[in-house]
């Protein structure tokens, strides 16, 4: 018996393959290294502030957590409001482009949406402060006069419109393009067979979207919303420019004292900060890092759970 006759079957390794696979591994590692570097920096710089006597911090809060609490709340609250406004609109636009609009209109609209995504946030900030805030002020006055009994519109109205609702509207305008662009791509990938099957069974277009398009795209929609939420959570310029902040935890949408966001607060106070104040600001950055991490993980869990039913695999 000759045992050496048949060598095991192996594909010949080409150099290009090896180079390519190595470079993808390097790219994958690089992003982890960058993430780790940021985390190490944040933690190392935060420790002095976490250990310091809170009376040394700006505004002499009772503890670091009393300082960061309203900021963390404001960050999540503003981003949540923005997502609440942006999500239905984005899904609507995406469905219109993918399933309702004539092809030429859809294409044009797609370009416009992408263009909106390219506008820098400082421009949105200027628009918010110069155009939107003065415009919505009378409307806020009307809301407070007529719906003042509702907790969200309680108290006295802001005289300048620089409230968290205005910020949320600007943020919503900023994240609409992201959510729309992603959802549109997902909706366009719905298998035509599914759609035609639904229509053949006598479904209306609405029912077809409910039965075929949305279930197929659910995981993708959640991902798109989370990307939008991520941008809203970290948005700095708009908040710094438009919001009238105060160190409070308040759900009121139309008042003068609004909880600031972590990113906005850093932008406002970093230029004049020194010593332990800088550490305190970086420590709030660490909290923001943790918040985004938690929210993204939750989103990932949702996406994974839904994936099985999506038909994408």
């Amino acid at each position: 018996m000759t045992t050496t006759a048949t060598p095991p079957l192996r594909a010949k390794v080409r150099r290009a393959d090896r180079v390519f696979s190595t470079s993808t591994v390097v790219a994958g590692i690089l992003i982890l290294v960058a993430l780790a570097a940021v985390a190490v920096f944040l933690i190392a710089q935060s420790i002095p502030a976490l250990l310091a006597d809170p009376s040394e911090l700006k505004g002499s809060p009772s503890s670091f957590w009393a300082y960061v609490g309203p900021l963390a709340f404001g960050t999540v609250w503003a981003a949540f409001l923005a997502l609440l406004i942006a999500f239905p609109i984005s899904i609507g636009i995406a469905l219109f482009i993918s399933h309702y609009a004539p092809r030429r209109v859809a294409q044009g609209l797609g370009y416009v949406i992408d263009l909106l995504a390219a506008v820098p946030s400082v421009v949105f900030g200027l628009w918010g402060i110069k155009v939107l805030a003065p415009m919505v002020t009378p409307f806020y006055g009307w809301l407070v006069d007529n719906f003042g009994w509702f907790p969200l519109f309680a108290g006295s109205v802001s005289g300048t419109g620089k409230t968290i609702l205005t910020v949320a509207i600007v943020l919503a305008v900023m994240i609409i393009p992201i959510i729309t662009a992603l959802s549109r791509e997902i909706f366009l990938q719905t298998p035509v067979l599914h759609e035609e099957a639904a229509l053949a069974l006598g479904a209306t277009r609405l029912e077809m979207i409910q039965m075929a398009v949305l279930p197929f795209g659910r995981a993708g929609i959640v991902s798109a919303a989370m990307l939008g939420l991520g941008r809203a959570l970290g948005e700095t310029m708009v908040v710094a420019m438009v919001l009238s902040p105060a160190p409070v935890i308040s759900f009121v949408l139309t008042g003068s004292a609004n909880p600031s966001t972590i990113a906005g607060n850093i932008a406002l106070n970093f230029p004049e900060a020194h010593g332990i104040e800088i550490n305190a600001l970086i420590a709030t950055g660490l909290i923001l890092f943790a918040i985004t991490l938690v929210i993204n993980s939750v989103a990932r869990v949702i996406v994974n759970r839904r994936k099985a039913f999506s038909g994408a695999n």
Partner: protein
Amino acid sequence: MRFTRFGSVAAVAIAASVLLSSCAANEGGTPTDDESASTLSGSLVGGGSSAVGAAQETWIAEFQTANPDVDIAYDPAGSGAGRETFLAGGSDFAGTDRAFDDEEVAAGGFASCAPDSPIVQLPLYISPIAVIFNLEGIDTLDLDAETIAGIFAGTITSWDDPAIADQNEGVELPATPITAVHRSDDSGTTENFTDYLAQAAPTTWTYEADGVWPIEAGEAAQGTSGVVDAVTNGTGTIGYADASRAGDLGTVSVLVGDEYLPFSPEAAAAIVDASPFVEGRAEGDLSIELDRTPDEAAYPVVLVAYLVGCETYEDSAQGELVKEYFTYMASPEGQEAAAEGAGSAPISDALFEKASAAIELIK
């Protein structure tokens, strides 16, 4: 842009030298151009208050034109950072919204200076802060400190409040609610404004002077331009901002003694003369205990920023350079340039004399 500016400067310089020399030739005397022939050279690094930033830009441009071999850089990183950098030896001079206090001066250890050298602190940048408001048809209002404090603390909430009306007889005040706008960022303007409220209205304003707005009441806006914008765009709004930015907005005349005083450069400069120097400091340390409730006609809502240097530098050439630059900043020309470029109030003659004596100590 750069090139054309340098070009025009060069053209002016050439024209001036031709003129000067021809004049001199006409007069038949020996040409004396010690002005254009500056022998100064070297570089200076400064940093600190962003409020002084605009004035520094003007001063540096003018000084470098007069002394082409000198290179000065000023980093408007903020007062706290400026003091820290100076203390650590990272800069030759600092600009700061407040002088080094007793404790810091006693601790010493100014690494920029020669060992045991005292520091020189000069209040060379005085900028009036205007209390601005937006009420249709009203250009000025007379208010005392208690009323201003009440408005900003949120206890006076309507423009036709008797506290305001009593001081402004004959002015048609609307029943509009008041929106008081303050800075949302940490700033020297806020620190000086709250210091004024704390000193002049201690019963209504029970908070300490702070660069961050200490209470929840009122609206907040980013930066001087943000406050001016919010006041301009809103109705029934009131705020405080660098006086040079007040524009067409209504401004408040502040009660001083028994007289309502609008802001003016002279009145702002007068507050420094009306205030005592901090006691027990070195000869060159002109730190001022700002008295916001003066007896004389001086506008009390001002931001005073100091320029800080050493009496003795390790390197005497560096000392010479700092001395020349400080001399220029304190000079009437320098102060006038800052008034034009940054809207500050030129210092008074009395302060100029004291500052000159202090600058003489630098070496």
